[in-house]
């Protein structure tokens, strides 16, 4: 996940333009950090402006509560402010910031956990009987996201970060501070749990979800 020019996240392909943007962003980050460390508090605004989108979205994926996501992101920025001098520049600023934010979100959620239903109790998505396919699709998506929140903590975070980082295992493992192998193993287990919960979704690939559900229902008749 990289920052967009307006501060919100930029999704999509990573082309040359994107790489260039990332390089410029890294330079700007470095410049802002230098100014902040030199005592210019206002320079931190540039960092918040650029990273507020990614951090709020990352927090949202951790708790799925907009207000809380903003509170957690704000806490992460304050922690980043306090610990800015500890960024050793061995990794990029974004890597450091995401890792710090993940730590903040993790401890915030340990202090005040999100109330989740157990994975087995996540409602089955409404299927083919639904008149409006768009609505049914939305319900399915919602059920899958609720199921992610219901995963055991050790599998939930890898899954959350993997999709936040646009399915980049290396980036997700850097954010979590875990070796890639461990990350891959936890991710595989998390995805396996999700697939077990929604077997019809894992069988299907490359097509819309609704036709598969419909075919399943017809086969049962």
């Amino acid at each position, binding site marked *: 996940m990289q920052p967009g020019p307006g501060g919100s996240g930029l999704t999509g392909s990573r082309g040359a333009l994107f790489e260039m943007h990332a390089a410029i962003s890294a330079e700007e980050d470095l410049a802002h950090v230098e100014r902040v460390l030199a005592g210019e*508090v206002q320079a931190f605004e540039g960092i918040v*402006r650029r990273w507020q989108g990614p951090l*709020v979205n990352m927090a949202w994926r951790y708790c799925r509560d907009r207000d809380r996501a903003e509170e957690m992101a704000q806490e992460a920025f304050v922690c980043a402010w306090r610990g800015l001098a500890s960024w050793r520049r061995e990794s990029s600023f974004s890597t450091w910031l995401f890792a710090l934010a993940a730590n903040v979100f993790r401890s915030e959620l340990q202090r005040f956990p999100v109330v989740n239903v157990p994975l087995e109790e996540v409602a089955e998505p409404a299927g083919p009987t639904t008149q409006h396919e768009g609505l049914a699709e939305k319900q399915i998506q919602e059920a*899958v996201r609720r199921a992610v929140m219901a995963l055991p903590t050790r599998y939930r975070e890898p899954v959350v970060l993997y999709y936040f980082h646009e399915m980049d295992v290396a980036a997700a493992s850097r954010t979590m501070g875990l070796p890639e192998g461990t990350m891959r193993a936890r991710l595989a287990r998390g995805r396996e749990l999700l697939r077990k919960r929604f077997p019809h979704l894992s069988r299907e690939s*490359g097509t819309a979800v609704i036709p598969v559900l419909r075919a399943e229902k017809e086969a049962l008749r």
Partner: protein
Amino acid sequence: MNPKTEHKTSRDAIDRILAVEEELIPSSGFLAETMERVREEAAMPRRIPFPWLRALPGIVLAVAVLCWSGFELMRAVLTAAQERASVQVQLSAATARAMEPAGWVALALFVSMLSWLFARRLAGRSGLL
């Protein structure tokens, strides 16, 4: 095969659902509120780090005293055991009776300490400490 590509080729519906997430735009006041908090932090007096260097002699002394106490205790116990073995000191019945609950007292103290540590840990987790 690049692991990233590998994952992408084996995408299923779950992947597609989770990969496409609605982008949340931070509320208009987020930046200002965050900067307000940062300014408050900046205005606060700097936290004084624990003076490890100054505390070092004290810590070393404390460790030394603890070690010395442990050593002395062990020596006393060993000496007492040797004397007991050689001289066969006969404790009076009253003294022996008084010593009996000592083990229980020690156990009770140990359990109390464990319970105190546990309570502290719980309080720490809940943010009370």
